[in-house]
């Protein structure tokens, strides 16, 4: 029963497709960090010269509904099948998935279909009956962070900036937070498995930074689906994030790197909320900047932080991080509209309102 050779997770690399991706967006990322998805597509198309298709017909995968238990598994499987049907219709075989909840969900569905072929048959019937559609199973399913990891060296070769403090020449200290559903359900679907995840630290190192380990690195951000969705339960979410901030604080990180759209938003917003509740700021000038893999890749490649990546949509200011690596940007353009006109600005940014 035991496999002959145990997988050495710390060296484990999954198969990631090289080209011709069918892109599946994330509801959460589109809401909170739409620029991250835009820059991901641009990096693939313009920097790496890859083919990636952004289909207007795909929708929510309903994964948030599935994990908050209002969407049955049978419906979730059929929703996933519809996305695959769109992929098939367009002639693609490789999915590039933006959301971690979707990524875990697609893997759960694929594994179910393998173990229980009757579930696949039922799903085919459901989809056909509901929409007249048929579908093929993707040959490769990669999360967007897998793809950035896969091409990290090519990105490093084109990089305009390195993750190095331009004043001191020291590598910047970066902690990562891996979304739970990236590899906790199916460790073999994540680079380095779940215990020794390499997907983000591999990028940090390739681009000149120092990946810093911390005790609660693998702890959940606390989303908890129904726990964040219902206001009365939100203390669960914030308590889990707090546990992470407490754990990373002694290492004085310059930045938190994420791969999950939910985590990216929560680790940003909860720093603000904790400062408001407890008066505590966990690092940086007024909070620790939080970036996703696409946002960071965009920065090192020299994309504009506001117009191209949309980092003004973060509560915690990213400027201290930009200044450290020497990114050139126009501070005044942060809160401008399409035509470059000023459009008013938030009451304040960061954790606490500045007193000056």
């Amino acid at each position: 029963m035991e496999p002959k050779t145990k997988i050495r997770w710390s060296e484990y690399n999954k198969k990631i497709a090289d080209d011709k991706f069918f892109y599946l967006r994330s509801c959460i990322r589109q809401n909170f960090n739409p620029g991250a998805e835009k820059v991901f597509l641009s990096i693939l198309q313009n920097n790496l010269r890859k083919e990636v298709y952004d289909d207007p017909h795909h929708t929510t995968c309903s994964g948030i509904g599935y994990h908050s238990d209002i969407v049955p598994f049978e419906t979730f499987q059929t929703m996933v099948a519809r996305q695959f049907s769109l992929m098939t219709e367009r002639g693609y075989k490789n999915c590039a998935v933006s959301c971690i909840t979707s990524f875990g969900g697609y893997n759960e569905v694929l594994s179910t279909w393998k173990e229980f072929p009757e579930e696949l048959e039922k799903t085919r019937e459901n989809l056909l009956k509901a929409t007249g559609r048929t579908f093929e199973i993707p040959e490769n399913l990669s999360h967007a962070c897998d793809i950035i990891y896969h091409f990290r060296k090519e990105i490093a070769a084109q990089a305009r900036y390195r993750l190095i403090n331009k004043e001191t020449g020291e590598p910047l200290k970066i902690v990562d937070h891996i979304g739970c559903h990236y590899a906790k359900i199916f460790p073999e679907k994540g680079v380095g498995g779940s215990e020794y995840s390499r997907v983000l630290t591999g990028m940090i190192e390739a681009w000149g930074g120092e990946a810093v380990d911390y005790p609660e690195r693998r702890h959940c951000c606390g989303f908890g689906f129904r726990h964040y969705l219902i206001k009365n339960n939100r203390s669960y979410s914030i308590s889990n994030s707090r546990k992470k901030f407490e754990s990373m604080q002694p290492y004085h990180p310059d930045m938190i790197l994420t791969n999950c759209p939910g985590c990216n938003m929560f680790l940003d917003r909860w720093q603000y909320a904790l400062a408001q509740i407890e008066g505590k700021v966990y690092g940086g000038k007024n909070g620790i900047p939080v970036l996703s893999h696409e946002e960071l890749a965009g920065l090192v490649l020299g994309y504009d932080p506001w117009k191209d990546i949309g980092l003004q949509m973060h509560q915690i200011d990213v400027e201290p991080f930009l200044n450290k690596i020497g990114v050139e940007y126009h501070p005044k353009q942060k809160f401008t509209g399409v035509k470059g006109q000023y459009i008013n600005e938030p009451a304040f940014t960061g954790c606490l309102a500045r007193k000056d």
Partner: protein
Amino acid sequence: MYSDLNQRLKADVRLEEGLQACMNCGICTAICPAAEFYEYDPRSIAITVQSGNEEKIAALLEGDTIWYCGQCMSCKTRCPRNNCPGLIISVLRKLSQETGAFIKSRMGRQQYLIVKTIGANILRFGYCVHPNSLVPATHPEQGPVWRWIYENMHEVYAAVDANLDGDGPGAMRKISPTDLDELHQIFEVSGGLKLYQTIEYFSQLKAVEMGLTDTNGKADMEKYTQYLLNE
């Protein structure tokens, strides 16, 4: 009151995946974030379901406990038997909703709120969340930057090249009526709508039982919602 709970649990393929000979070691509980913040013990859930004791299973379906899990699936990685208490929870929650047992607990009753928000968003917008549904007053934790985004919504999304409510591809594009119709059909055919309706049906019964009714004695779901929000 309930019948064949064991059989109904076992009919769900996810139980076969999620539970094989739990040895009661407690590793899942040690790693579980929900066990840290709630009176919650995934090990005892696995053991109870494994025991097949109908009475105890019924008690789980009616209680708060099963609703404490955060679905992070950290338990899956660590269980030496490759069990997944988080998946067992999904199966229990489904049965709790199908049998109406969920309205007996405070945490269970909250499912009505999720149907009315996330559930409605999925079929109305084709997204599980939409900027319009993230009202700053009910999301104070989103902070001043989100408020700024919300108040200048079209300009802010357009400035980062998102396609909010627009035609064609792009972030937050409008999902076309034809695509939304396909989602409706999928929900109709595969039991998604039925589950929404089941949750609503039992929630209405609860509202009436609690006297949250209109002048005709019918369930007043606005009052019930307010009750849940403050419960």
